[in-house]
């Protein structure tokens, strides 16, 4: 069988279990395709040499009639800021160019326990700070739909590799939109869970009170399957929550509910470029056809969301990245004869520009005299946003917006203006600040460039969100094409 790399999770899982093809065949094809295609887009940093052997082991287990997991043999790519034991984890930074973790992140362990095969580590903006993957010290990742354009970020490699069919699904991390933005730019499905639903143990922290690991796939169903495996309370992460509202519970019955209402956030749709908002309105029409009523409510506090986000995120980042002093792990630099302040400062000079800027801004907003004006204020705004969204969810089942207010843009276009770059996140940061689940699904193209729709639900309403998103996905039905690479 050929083109096994184009199949979705269910098709691969069943195909392998039913012996229509072997896992080895499937994985070999993917490895071949990576060799052929990835030099065009540069989505991978490291490939797992052991993948084929693991594939053979899955085949062996199946032949012997042993039970295998729900994701047995499925090829998953992992953003390179998630710890994988024995496999280099660089965060796309010179600071960690030699670092090989001695432990697996909880999400990795859970995937492996279900038989998934980690195919390799995917490119990102350094330490997850960026919106285009142009800040990677391993070179940028190109948009598979048009190689002159950015693929989004910071989980650029995760989205591009799935779009280019170099892996069946991938994991990214989303602090301010880092899973949803590249998913929108690459025409794939990307999901950010409710804060506390997925363990962050093993995720190299950028902004711990805002980020979550999230899956990226070509369909909502694939994303849901990954979520079923990785989500759930973890004793290794004190911020994970026990919830009865998890993915596996009672199927959310669309038919039963009447008077379903969606809200397209007014400020966010008004901030979008024309090709984007036109596409969004077409999607709203589809929702109406499905029986939803729609309105355009206002979210007043959204005006301050980006300022709040960048205050909190840079503050936490400045502290989280302090541990990178190259003493215990990092890269080659002999400490002999260096005075310790000098050594630290010199080693840390190897951070990229964007990381350095954010650390400095973060130190500033926490510093004596400014803490109240910036950090404390930002926390109050965060609370306010959460409060206002909660109130909206009393009236609306789902809240919508364009994932990104603009179309994907050319490589290098915004790189010289950090603030312009930050504005890409303006729609996505809301869900991180409020801790609510949000998904981006592809809804169309303009001039060959993808557009994504963001759908948000109240916290722990994963089930509802994914099920409705799945229904919409079917009715829009655009994912029949793949980038020609």
């Amino acid at each position, binding site marked *: 069988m050929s083109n096994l790399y184009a199949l979705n999770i269910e098709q691969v899982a069943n195909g392998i279990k039913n012996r229509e093809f072997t896992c080895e065949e499937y994985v070999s094809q993917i490895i071949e395709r990576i060799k052929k295609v990835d030099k065009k887009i540069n989505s991978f940093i490291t490939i797992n040499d052991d993948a084929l052997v693991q594939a053979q082991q899955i085949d062996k287990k199946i032949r012997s009639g042993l039970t295998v997991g729900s994701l047995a043999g499925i090829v998953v790519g992992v953003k390179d800021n998630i710890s994988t034991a024995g496999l280099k984890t660089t965060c796309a930074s010179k600071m960690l160019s030699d670092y090989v973790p001695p432990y697996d992140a909880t999400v990795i362990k859970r995937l492996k326990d279900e038989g998934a095969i980690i195919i390799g580590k995917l490119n990102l903006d350094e330490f997850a700070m960026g919106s285009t993957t142009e800040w990677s010290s391993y070179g940028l990742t190109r948009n598979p739909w048009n190689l002159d354009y950015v693929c989004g970020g910071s989980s650029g490699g995760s989205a591009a590799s799935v779009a280019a069919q170099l892996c069946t699904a991938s994991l990214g991390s989303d602090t301010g939109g880092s899973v949803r933005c590249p998913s929108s730019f690459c025409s794939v499905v990307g999901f950010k869970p409710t804060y506390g639903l997925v363990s962050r143990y093993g995720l190299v*922290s950028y902004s711990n009170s805002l980020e979550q690991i999230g899956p990226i796939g070509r369909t909502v169903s694939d994303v849901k399957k990954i979520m079923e495996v990785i989500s759930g309370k973890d*004793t290794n992460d004190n911020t994970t929550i026990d919830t009865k509202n998890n993915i596996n519970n009672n199927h959310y019955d669309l038919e039963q509910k009447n008077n379903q209402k969606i809200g397209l956030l007014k400020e966010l749709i008004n901030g979008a470029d024309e090709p984007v908002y036109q596409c969004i309105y077409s999607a709203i029409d589809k929702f109406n056809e499905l029986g939803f009523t729609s309105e355009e409510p206002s979210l007043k506090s959204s005006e301050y969301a980006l300022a709040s986000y960048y205050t909190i995120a840079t503050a936490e980042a400045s502290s989280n990245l302090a*541990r*990178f002093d190259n003493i215990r792990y990092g890269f080659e630099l002999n400490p*002999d004869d260096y005075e310790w302040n000098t050594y*630290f400062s010199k080693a840390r000079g190897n951070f990229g520009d964007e990381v350095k800027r954010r650390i400095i801004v973060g130190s500033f907003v*926490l*510093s004596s005299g400014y*803490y*109240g004006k910036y950090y404390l204020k930002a926390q109050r705004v965060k609370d306010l946003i959460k409060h206002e969204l909660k109130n909206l969810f009393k009236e609306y089942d789902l809240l919508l917006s364009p994932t990104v207010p603009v179309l994907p843009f050319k490589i290098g276009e915004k790189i010289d203006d950090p603030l312009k770059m930050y504005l890409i996140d303006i729609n996505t940061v809301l869900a991180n600040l409020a801790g609510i689940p949000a998904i981006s699904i592809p809804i169309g193209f303009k001039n060959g460039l993808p557009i994504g729709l963001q759908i948000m639900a109240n916290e722990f309403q994963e089930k509802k969100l994914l099920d409705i998103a799945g229904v919409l996905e079917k009715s829009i039905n655009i994912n029949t094409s793949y980038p020609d690479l």
Partner: protein
Amino acid sequence: MTSSSLPVKIGLEIHCQLTQLNTKLFCSCYCNYREKEINSNICPICLGLPGSLPILNKKAVEFAIMISKALDCKIPELTVFSRKNYFYPDLPKNFQITQYDSYGTSTSIGKEGSVKYGENNKIARIRRIQLEEDPGRLVYENGRMQALIDYNRAGVALVEIVTEPDFTDPKDVRTFLNKMTSILEHLNVCNTNLEGSLRCDANISIGNGKKVEIKNVGSFSDIEKALTYEITRQKTMTVHDIEIKAETRHWDDKRKITKQARSKEEEEDYRYFPEPDIPKVLLENLSLIKTPELPDERKFRFINDYGLSEHVSQVLIDNKDLADLFESAIKIYHSPKSISNWIVSDILAFMEYDSSGKKTITDEMKINSKHIAEIAKLVDDNTINRSTAKSIISRIIKTGELPSDIIKKEKQMTTIINDEKILLESIDRIFKEEKKATLDAKQNPTAINFLLGKIMRLTKGRADPKITTILLKKRLDEV
């Protein structure tokens, strides 16, 4: 203004390791890092590996609550952890997870408490108690200043106790610290005998002038010396109109002076903010956390229930080991006054000073409550005299032999009875009890041994055998 009229203000910052925990504050590595091979007591969390997350130890919080209660502190409904951000090679994350009260909020584990100490029940106010983690250990390579770091200790739970600057006399500081040691020991949260388990920094100002911090003081007796020296230094400077700088000074034990610590570049800005990885902790059902008997309660009990003197009681509770020894000894032989005296006047003399300046029963001392109970009884029964008892104690401490065994081996230890009058009384008594044997002995000289044996039994082996035999024969003739 004369120097003697300048008011002295001393405040203390005590760091107490919660040595009685099994694990560290945020991970499940061993709390007891001493004697472990270098860098063998580590995990991703305490080594600060990327992606690791702190997991709070329930028992550590409970211990901290017990300390708060014992020091009469107010305990908040919610307790919160914060990050103190600074760089140092012994700090795996280059921040310390601690507790910090800011902007009018008060979320450390305890505040506004007080402790009574000393003969006159002076009161020291406690400003704040907080939970935090210990850094790793930095040693220097072979005379050069190259850092060698051992992370075995990194992440061990500490409780920091901050007092108000209520102290005016270094002697009081010493007494207070002894009281604190006793409280912590009685709570069974810290084994203060372990090296480095209890550390104290002080800050001192005179005449409401600038505050000087004194760090790096090894023992509590050194703190008294350091403070005494510092008061003199500051008073001298003031009299000569020299400005006292706000600074940190270290205690130089060799030269017995305080000296300026290497100056930091500038005042450190710690950029405190709440730790996002640890949720706020709701402290409920605090009444379920019971504190063990505190020193003051125990002392009260010793005085009232056992009739001990104030002084003896104080000595016992100042050294928890001795108080424990006392209570188990009186269970065996209930003579509180004599047992306590034996402990306080004799055992104490054999105890060594540990690193904190406190006397301690070391592992080498093989004496236990059984030994002491026996000694007390033997002396009370007049089986041995006091000087014999003292020499026995010294031997017991080395060998662990029971006093009764020692006496059996060394006959001459017992108080020999050679008083003829007493011996004759014993002989007559035996004659009454053993009429048949007595008659036998008159005929048969060998039967004398039987009677002699009886007399020895009666006198607990103390009758002088030679004299007794002579008297025995004499008496037999008379009967």
